[in-house]
Structures are given as C-alpha cells and as structure tokens.
C-alpha cells in the first residue's frame, strides 16, 4: 500500500517538475544579428513559435521517447552530450560518497563510543566548521598547498601531458592522482551531517534496553555497537547516501570548474554561459529525476528490509 502511494507521488512529481525550467522563455539575444527569415526558421525548428502550453506538450512527448531535443549551441542531441560526460561525473560522485562514508562512519562511531567526551566534541565542532567552508575556497587552498607548494599532486585536469606514453597500471594511477583533490573537495562538507547521523543512530539503538542487556551479558562496547547499532543503522545510512548524491551534483558543478574536469557539471556551466536552454533543461530534469529515483529506491529498500514499514 505504501509502495503504491510512493509510485503515485513520484508520478505526480515528475509531471510537475518539468514546468519550472520551461517557465523560462528562451532568450534570443544572439539571434538578433541574423536576418528575420532565418530567425523565423530557427524559431520554427525549436518550436519557439508555438504557445507555451503547446511547447511544453511537444517537449514532454519528446521526453517520453527519451529525446531531450538538440543543443542550441552545436545542434547535437542533448542526450548524447550528457551521456558522453555522465560517466566521469558519476565516478567522481561515487568515489566522493565512498570517501565520505569511509571517514564519517568511523568518526561517528568513535564519537558514539564515548558520548560527551573531548573527542566527541572535537569531532562535532571540527566537522561543523568544515560544513561552512565554501567548496571553491577549499579547492583553491588544496591546489595551492598540494599542487603548487608541495608539488605532490597535479593542479587540475584529468590526465598528465604525457599520459599517452604511460604503460600498464600507470594510466589508471595517473587518473586516480588527478581525482584525489576533487574527490576530497566534494566529500568534506557532508562529514558533519553524516557523522552526526551515525552517532545519533548508534546511540539510539545501542544505548537502549537491548544494548544495556548486551553489556550486562559481558559484551564489549564495540561489540554492542556493532551488533545492536550497525545492523539497525545500516539501512538509514543507505537512505541518507541516496539523499546526499543530488547535493553532490550541485557541488560537482563547482569542483569540475576548479579542476577543469570535463564532466556534466562543466557542461552545465558552459550551457549557462551560452544560454543553451535545451541542455540546461535536460540536465536540471535529469538531476531532479535522479533525486526522485534515489528517494524511491531508498523507500523500496526500507520496505524490503524492514517489515514494520511494509505494514504501516
């Protein structure tokens, strides 16, 4: 029953969502210089001469065929432009998410072991400060420190100049080196949120009666946290990861610009400069749809793993 409601909700939302990017009538400043005739033809080609509801309908029927239209800039299909860059951004985001969980879960766990201790307060304060650090500032400082001053890591880009001559494992290693700083930039701001969440969930589950009983049976604190905390915290954590991914997409717009990475975020910024409305619309829709899919998946996983949710 919950499932049915969720799918219905998502259906309504997807119908609502495309209205927003479309609400903005495309600018045709750049078209002012070319002739009246050519302008009319161009308008007809992109259906800009139709009334707005009709435009919307046309766009939506195309969307059902998975066709997002053609770019204003180079007339290539938007889906193709996105598809060739999506892999890179997904890799970036997925590794950032992995790093985030890898750091935040131990942080939260350590804090939960001794709530109120100096370490607990230090972790909470430190991650809280990190949360307010703007991404592009962190990116710049990391570049200055590790690329310029220390020279340990490459400044920007994806590949070294001589990457064609690298053999065997050196190629992927080169790529990985280039991705270290961007991945750090994308993951640090979520630390506060996730580690606090881990701490709260662990405490809630392991500090309850079942946890006290387990301690009384002689289990160590770590074992109690593991057996009674993590098993119950795992699922909400996955849900949280689903929610975090979209906010990372926003961050990757900036990170890809700083580090000159040709991903989807970079495509979006370029499209914004070129007023390339089909690309902007396509990417905005995609990010919204990805969020919805994440929420839906999280709900489904919840229902599958937790019988209490299914019954409700």
């Amino acid at each position, binding site marked *: 029953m919950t499932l049915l409601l969720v799918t219905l*909700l998502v259906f*309504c*939302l997807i119908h*609502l*969502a495309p209205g*927003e*990017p479309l609400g*903005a*009538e*495309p*600018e045709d400043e750049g078209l002012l210089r070319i002739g009246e005739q050519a302008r009319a033809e161009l308008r007809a080609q992109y259906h800009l001469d139709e009334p707005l509801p009709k435009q919307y309908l046309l766009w939506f029927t195309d969307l059902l065929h998975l066709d997002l239209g053609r770019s204003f800039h180079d007339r290539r299909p938007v889906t193709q432009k996105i598809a060739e860059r999506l892999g890179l951004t997904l890799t970036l985001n997925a590794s950032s998410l992995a790093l985030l969980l890898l750091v935040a879960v131990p942080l939260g766990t350590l804090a939960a072991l001794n709530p*109120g201790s100096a370490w607990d307060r230090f972790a909470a304060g430190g991650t*809280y*400060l990190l*949360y*307010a*650090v*703007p*991404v*592009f*500032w*962190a990116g*710049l*400082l990391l*570049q*200055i420190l590790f*690329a*310029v001053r220390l020279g340990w890591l490459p*400044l920007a880009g994806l590949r070294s100049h001589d990457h064609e001559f690298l053999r065997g494992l050196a190629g992927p290693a080169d790529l990985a080196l280039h991705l270290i700083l961007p991945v750090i930039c994308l993951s640090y701001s979520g630390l506060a949120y996730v580690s606090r969440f881990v701490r709260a969930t662990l405490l809630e589950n392991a500090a309850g009666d079942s946890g006290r009983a387990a301690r009384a049976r002689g289990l160590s604190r770590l074992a109690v946290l593991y057996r009674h905390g993590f098993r119950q915290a795992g699922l909400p954590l996955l849900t949280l990861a689903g929610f975090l991914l*979209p*906010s990372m*997409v*926003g*961050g990757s*717009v*900036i990170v890809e*610009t*700083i580090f000159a990475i040709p991903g989807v975020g970079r495509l*979006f*910024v370029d*499209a*914004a*400069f070129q*007023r390339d*409305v089909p690309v*902007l*619309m396509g*990417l*905005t829709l995609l*990010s*919204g749809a990805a*969020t*919805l899919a994440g929420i839906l998946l999280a709900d489904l996983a919840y229902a599958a793993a937790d019988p209490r949710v299914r019954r409700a």
Partner: protein
Amino acid sequence: MRERLPSSLWWGVLLLGLLIAVAVAAPWVAVDPARLDLDRVLLSPSIENWLGTDALGRDMAARLAHGARVSLAVGLLSAGVALLIGLPLGALAGYRGGWADAAVSRVIEAMLCFPALLLVLALLAAGPRWFSGMSDVLRIALVLGFTGWMPAARYLRAEFLKLKRSEMVLAARAVGAGHLRVAVRHILPCALAPVLVTAAFAVGAAIAMEAALSFLGLGVRPPVATWGGLLADAREQVDRAWWLALFPGLALFLAVLGCNLIGEGLRDLLDPRRTTARP
C-alpha cells in the same frame, strides 16, 4: 530564573556584527577598491597593504571590505524574498489544509528535488528578458529567494497546522475575527519563531551561493568587488599569490559560519527540549 543564551548565538552575532560593521564602514575606512597601482602588483601582506595587492595593484583589504557589502546585500535581500514567498504559501497550506495544502506541499517537494545551484544557474541563464535588465544584486537576490523559500514555508505550515486547533484561534473566531485576521494577527506572531531560524540559515546559504555564482562568472559582474569574484581572480595566481586565495575565502567562511551559528543558537533558544538536554 534567567536562562543563559546559547554560546553559539553569541559567536554568530559577534561574527555577523563584525561583518556588518565592515560592510557599512567600507567607503570611509578603506581606500578606493578600484584604484590601480601597477607599481605595486601582487605584493604580499604588509603595513601599507594589510592583505596584499592583486594582479593590478589593487588593495585587497579594500576590495574585501567592499565585497562584504555585496555579500550582505544579497544575503539579506534574498532571505527577505524567500520569506515573502514562503510565508504566505506556508500559511495558506497550514491554515486552509485540503487541496491548498496538497498543492503547496507537492510544489515544495518538487522544488527540493533539484540541486539548488543547478536551479539558480538555469534561472539566471535562461530567465525572461525583463529579468536580465535588472541590477546584478537584485537579480541574484530574487533568484536565490525564489529557489530558497521552501524551508520557511515548510516550518510555517507545520506551525499553522499545530496552532490552527488551539483555543486561541477558537476565541478569536468567537469574537468575530475573519480568517485572514486570525491567520495574520493571531497565529502568525506565534508561528514566526521557527521561521526565524530558517531565515538565519537562508542568509548564510545565500551568501555562499552568491559567492559560488560570482566565482563561476555568472554572478555580480566585475569591476564590482565580490568575494566570489576575488577568489576567481585568485585562481589565475595560484602559483604566485596565496594571500589572494586565503583572505576572501576566510571572510566568506566566517560570514557563513556566523549565520549558521545564529541559526543554531536560535534553534537551541527556541526549543526547550534541546536547551535542557545540554550538560
């Protein structure tokens, strides 16, 4: 018994007060931020130029102080716009319920699905023509307000739902007050407190977002000095001048932190459960 104010509130007010003081005083205390001095290019911090100079010999301290004006204006204006949109919608949804509630709630959920930065960039790039004729600060504040009203509406809706059934409303209705009067004069003042918290966070988020936009080159355009713009300039000099990157970012960090601390402090202050739970 007097309650102690949360320390985060003090720190936040201190930071933001400092920022406001700098922003207000900037034209009088700082030198002209646009004055070029090509003999004094890329100087590291010194007595004459506290925070060094940039690639055109402009004084960083002056540019930073003037950048504070832009950040603050955008932050406060956009929070105002967000409240202007969010309050009526949230009140309507909470007070009327039914289809109004359903409609507003769906719109909120749909808006929250998009990463804010993408939505803002798309609106700035593809906004209607009358829109691009406005001044940069106003334009950005409007867009940020338009994409940031959801938390205010959500909280106000929840408060209205709670207060709608209170005896206070029943009494007001009984003495003949209309729905609008009840909503505005009786419920709104009681429901405003949690919304204040969201407003504080909204100011911080807007300051960060404006800097991001200016950094990308789609925000307030040069030669106006903005923190984001200063950081974008610093990118060109990463191998030569660390001070160009350090100070604007530090200012931005402290401003955002100040807003967040105020929000956090207000929340602690308004939520009795949390304050008593503190050791």
